[in-house]
């Protein structure tokens, strides 16, 4: 009882399904897309180095969140000794004033869907700049 044909057909369907994201973006000519988050003009430094922020901003934000909410510590003293108010809307968006052109660029690209903005206010959207 060897259902060779059925097995082959199943394998082909499986392979097509698994490689769907690759050929779908290739067919739609999006394979070369690179996100370009727009950095604020006139600002040199973020709260930490650009490499750190690129790789681990989500960790920093989680730690900020816990520091404020759980420990009542609302001031961040960075590794270079600068002091910042811990605030997503106030401090982060204070410089990165356009969420759509900054955060969303990469988040949309990688399909990350952080729920920050379900509660925190996107001031760029209320100013009518965001999407």
């Amino acid at each position: 009882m060897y259902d060779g044909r059925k097995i082959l057909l199943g394998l082909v369907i499986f392979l097509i399904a698994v490689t769907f994201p690759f050929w779908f973006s290739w067919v739609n000519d999006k394979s070369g897309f690179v996100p370009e988050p727009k950095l604020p003009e006139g600002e040199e430094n973020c709260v930490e180095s650009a490499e750190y922020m690129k790789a681990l901003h989500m960790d920093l934000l989680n730690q900020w969140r816990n520091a404020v909410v759980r420990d009542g510590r609302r001031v961040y003293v960075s590794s270079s000794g600068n002091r910042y108010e811990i605030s997503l809307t106030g401090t982060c968006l204070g410089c990165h004033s356009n969420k759509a052109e900054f955060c969303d660029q990469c988040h949309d690209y990688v399909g990350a869907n952080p729920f920050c903005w379900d509660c925190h206010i996107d001031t760029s959207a209320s100013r009518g700049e965001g999407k």
Partner: protein
Amino acid sequence: MDESKRGFLKIAGCSVLGVLGAAGMRTATDVGPGGKAVESSTTLNGKKWGMVVDSQRCLEKEGCTACIEACHRIHNVPSIADPKEEVKWVWKEPFEHSFPTQAHQYTKASLNEKPVLVFCNHCENPPCVRVCPTQATWKREEDGIVMMDQHRCIGCRYCMVACPYGSRSFNWQDPRNALQGGINPEYPTRTKGVVEKCNFCAERLAKGQEPACVEACRKSAGAGALLFGDLEDPESEVSKLLSERYSIQRKPGLGTKPQVYYLV
């Protein structure tokens, strides 16, 4: 009015000294690549925050809702018409409902209907904290505020079931739908599916400001019915008032030890 202001400044002064004294003991949280999270230097520190409601004074100005409006505006509390889905941090509850054990069959009918200002009691023995399965609500050891972590809440509503004062509200729907009047960008909204309640303005205390309702009440002409302060500090205005005048708590028989007191 001046007196309460002076009292408040006194609290603030003591707190600053308290911060300086305690600064050595407090450890900062390590955050990020060698950074630290520290307490703001402006923070008002109390050992046990409490509220005193002067019911008589509160009733003087009929229909006054200055405190409710200020609180709900600042904290982005949605105004939902359906009483089943209402969200409220501070509101007025008829006397017979807020103090069911005080009202009796010969209580003046007009008194039974008199509105009493109610909010989270920040109990010393909070049932909500006892039942929460994730510590999304907890009692802050340093100042006794019953806090709420909206990031951690799973929306099981066990805290609402456990609260004997109906002080907690659940977001049955997206609260932003009911915030058409404008959002205060200084404070987050909530998302659907989490529980919220009065936080004694923890975020304002951190900036050295008194709770929004207290401030609004003092500014509203002829009022000063809400007083906030450190109950552990014998010199605070709230401690003095409680030692001098007769006051009651809501449902004291349950042993929750509310930290909101009512002068009668």
